């Protein structure tokens, strides 16, 4: 439990530091644009690594199911927009491509 409380405290500190550092800067401030770029690049790297080299139960899905599901979801996103329908379409294709 001590480790968990330490982690919670550190996460609060990270969030608070971000809010404090941004201070009264506007969205176009170079520091804000750099932080936004880092955050978006981190998210892109997360998606790529989760699809290409997952761990745990996700690794039991074949790579064709993972990538096929993602591809189908993006195709539906560009075709119809929204998020829920693309997510469901992606999961359906992943199930179809699973053994």
């Amino acid at each position, binding site marked *: *439990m001590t*480790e*968990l409380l*330490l*982690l*919670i405290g*550190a*996460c609060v500190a*990270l*969030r*608070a530091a*971000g*809010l404090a*550092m*941004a*201070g*009264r800067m506007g*969205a176009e*401030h*170079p520091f*804000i*644009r750099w*932080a*936004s*770029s*880092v*955050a*978006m*690049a*981190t*998210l*892109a*790297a*997360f998606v*790529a*690594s*989760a*699809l*290409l080299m*997952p*761990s*745990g*139960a*996700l690794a*039991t*899905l074949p790579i064709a199911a993972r990538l096929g*599901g993602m591809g189908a*979801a*993006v195709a539906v*996103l*560009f075709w119809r927009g929204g*998020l*829920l329908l*693309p*997510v469901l379409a*992606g*999961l359906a294709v*992943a*199930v179809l491509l*699973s053994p």
Partner: protein
Amino acid sequence: MSGTGPFARACREALGAPALAMAATFLAFGTAAAAAGLSLGWTLLAALGVYGMPGQMILLGGGGVAAAVAANARFLPMAVSLSPWLGRGGGRWLSLPFIAVTPWAMAMRRLPHTPPTDRLRWFLGFALTSWIVAGLSALAGFLLAGRLPGPVLAVLLLTNPIYFGLIVADAARVHPARLSVACGLLATPLALVLPASLGLLAAGLVGGSVAFALSARRRD
């Protein structure tokens, strides 16, 4: 409260695809925590207090606090980039417990097109709903532990990368996010070769900084 106010609208929006992705991820976390022999109290405190899955999973797996903090270090750039959209008053500090990838990603899509007076209420509605969904899903996962077949769990876990993949694909339609996404993808090998706690942080820092530098050169 009006059913069409920014808070209510954000609550409804959070209950769509974001809730599905959030529920699937936290359900799997609750299941994993129960399987590891942890208490329900620990599980809920981790889900709602840490509220950042990579760090939660590392702590659950015995990776230690330092590695878990490094894995959740993305909270810092996310809070920095979110802050200007939440107003300059003290009210933006109400967002603190809820700053996580799901509310951040949707906020960066919605807040630039939301009237400034509505932005904080929109964020709090979306973020609070997502947070409640996360807690309830972790609870459900804990109670369902051992009853979910492996293939079902695997497909549930795919919901999260698919959802964030869509956020990334949508963001990549416009500059400068397109450059950040491209550089993040190119930096992904760093996430694959470094320890899990540092890999994503390194890929994001390198990819995001290169994209920022290229974007700044283009502006000059």
